[in-house]
């Protein structure tokens, strides 16, 4: 070789900040935040974190700009802001849980769950939500009894029977749009329906159930459809090859494979409508006693109970918080059981 090869110059590397620097800056910012809030007034968590966050954003960007250059400074700024957005979003969730548990746990007791509001007035601290819990369970149960079969059958139609065409497209789009129907409009529809069919004086839990069913059906369709699509086509073909009729294939192979996912979806749909307030407020109303007949008379439901008790003020506010805690516990329980079902019973190794 005649030409002498020049060893390549080392590639210019950007100088990066060591890993500990952001944390050090964060600690410094929080300390500065504490100092600032001490100077301006009393020290609160909101103040320290608020000032600290602003100081941190400025400090880390400037430090990075000096050491690493403009591009990395921008990157650090973006990382900070994105993380801050997430942290900000957890504030409502955490504060809400702390607030409801803190205010509700005092009044929530066995007696509260087993007492209705008959003979409770003024500043009496007795009384409970038994009638409201019963009402919620009955109305949601009736709504589910309509919405689950309707939603499941529609999902089966969309995945197993429908051929691509205008009808399938229309149903898919309308189901999507239906998930966005305002709950108050669903309530108005149910109220109007029964006003016309049964006369304006008719008040019953079933009116609320119709409204809830209308809200629940599209959610059931969506989640069931998704689950049915996950069932591998090979299973269906294997069943057909054995001479199993289509309807039995759907019933015994497809549904049985997807049952865990469907159960999860249905329970999340129930959890979604069990907290609906507005449609029940304008249709079912409120009473003080237990009403077990969904076909006749006003009923109390838990969300409406919470709303009314809070609006009354005074001693009722405690009952409202206890009711809210009960409601959240029911919703969370449904969500939790739903997740467990999908975890435990979903087919192993399918994914």
């Amino acid at each position, binding site marked *: 070789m005649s030409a002498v090869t020049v060893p390549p110059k080392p590639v210019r590397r950007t100088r990066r900040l060591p890993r500990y620097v952001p944390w050090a800056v964060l600690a410094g910012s929080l300390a500065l935040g504490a100092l600032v809030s001490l100077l301006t007034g009393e020290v609160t968590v909101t103040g320290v974190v608020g000032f600290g966050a602003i100081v941190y954003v400025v400090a880390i960007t400037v430090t990075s700009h000096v050491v690493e250059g403009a591009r990395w400074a921008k990157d650090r700024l*973006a990382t900070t802001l994105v993380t801050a957005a997430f942290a900000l*979003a*957890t504030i409502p969730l955490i504060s809400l849980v702390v607030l409801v548990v803190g205010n509700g746990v005092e009044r929530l007791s066995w007696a509260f769950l087993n007492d209705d509001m008959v003979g409770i007035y003024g500043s009496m601290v007795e009384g409970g939500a038994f009638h409201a819990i019963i009402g919620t369970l009955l109305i949601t149960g009736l709504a589910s009894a309509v919405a689950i079969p309707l939603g499941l059958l529609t999902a089966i139609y969309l995945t197993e029977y*429908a051929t691509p065409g205008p009808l399938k497209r229309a149903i898919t789009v309308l189901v999507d749009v239906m998930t*966005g129907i305002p709950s108050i409009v669903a309530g108005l529809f149910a109220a109007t329906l029964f006003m016309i069919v049964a006369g304006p004086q008719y008040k019953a839990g079933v009116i609320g159930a119709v409204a809830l069913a209308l809200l629940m059906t599209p959610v059931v369709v969506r989640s069931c459809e998704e689950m049915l699509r996950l069932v591998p086509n090979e299973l269906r073909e294997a069943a057909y090859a054995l001479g199993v009729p289509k309807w039995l294939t759907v019933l015994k192979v497809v549904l049985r494979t997807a049952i865990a996912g469907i159960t999860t979806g249905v329970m999340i749909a129930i959890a979604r409508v069990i907290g609906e307030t507005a449609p029940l407020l*304008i249709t079912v109303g409120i009473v003080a006693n237990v009403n077990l007949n969904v076909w006749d008379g006003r009923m109390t439901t838990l969300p409406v109970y*919470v709303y009314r008790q809070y609006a009354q003020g005074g001693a009722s506010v405690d009952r409202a918080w206890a009711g809210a805690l009960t409601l959240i516990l029911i919703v969370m329980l449904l969500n939790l059981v739903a997740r467990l079902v999908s975890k435990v019973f979903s087919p192993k190794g399918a994914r």
Partner: protein
Amino acid sequence: MARELTDTKEKPVSAVTGTETIRRGPAPGRVGNFVFKGLSSGAGILIVVLLGLVAGFLLYRAIPAITATRDQLEAVGFMRGESLLSYVLPLAFGTVLSSVIALVVAVPLSIGIALFISHYAPRRLAQGLGYLIDLLAAIPSVVFGLWGLSFLQPRVGPLFEWLSTNMGWFPPFSGYLGPAKNIAIASLVLAVMILPIITATIREVFLQTPRLHEEASLALGATRWEMIRQAVLPFGRSGIISAAMLGLGRALGETMAVLMVLAPGFLVNFYILRPGQHQSVAANIANQFPEASGLGADVLIATGLFLFVLTFVVNLAARWIINRRAEFSGAN
């Protein structure tokens, strides 16, 4: 598909027993197939019919209010002698204003959260963090109302006051009057309520970003943020738009937060920090409908029909954008 066996000329016969092996006659389960197919198609069609019924019944009851004369409407107590149009206008304005403010707050925040979950958080944590945000969607709206009144109200009050005293020259911020029962706080509660659906939609789109685009960008020396600007955001733009519209649809129809937090009024203005200026269609229905009867109920149903049409259009547009994107992106 269960295929019917067609008759063949020669009967298949078992070599051992000499009897026919294939069952003749109609395919098994023909009745079951027919019934089951009928049931499921019926359910699908019923859903379409149901949506038509909703519009139909609302329209049927709204027509008396639309055609009513001025004198008839004056008899309705809560309308204070206004025509239907001038009654709906402030309500529609309040609804749109609160929803738009909620969107302005929620969309940037959602993009940040979605990015955090899809591209920043450690992979193992990402799913759990997504579930945490989804939990917000499970909280009943009445509980959000309680939260708005007893957590948010005392905390944003000082902020509003500061805004009003220091930036009061900007008309929308002028004239704050505590306690905070204005449209700004109602919009903040709405923003928290629509956060989960916007985040979930945007997150799905961000996760679909072609891996190769991201890696190509990083390989060219881009920082993470530059990669997001170059690969993730352009890919997800239509997803962000449709997510915002889905959130808008939710915010337009949300009742309880506005009903519980806002001190209502029937004015058309932009004083977002003053109480008693605005009211939304949904909250107004929830407020008046239990006591309304006759023509009063018809008027409220007419406003409900307006809300139905508005959210229907917004949701339809959002779905249209999503579907159009799905056809082009090829990321399915």
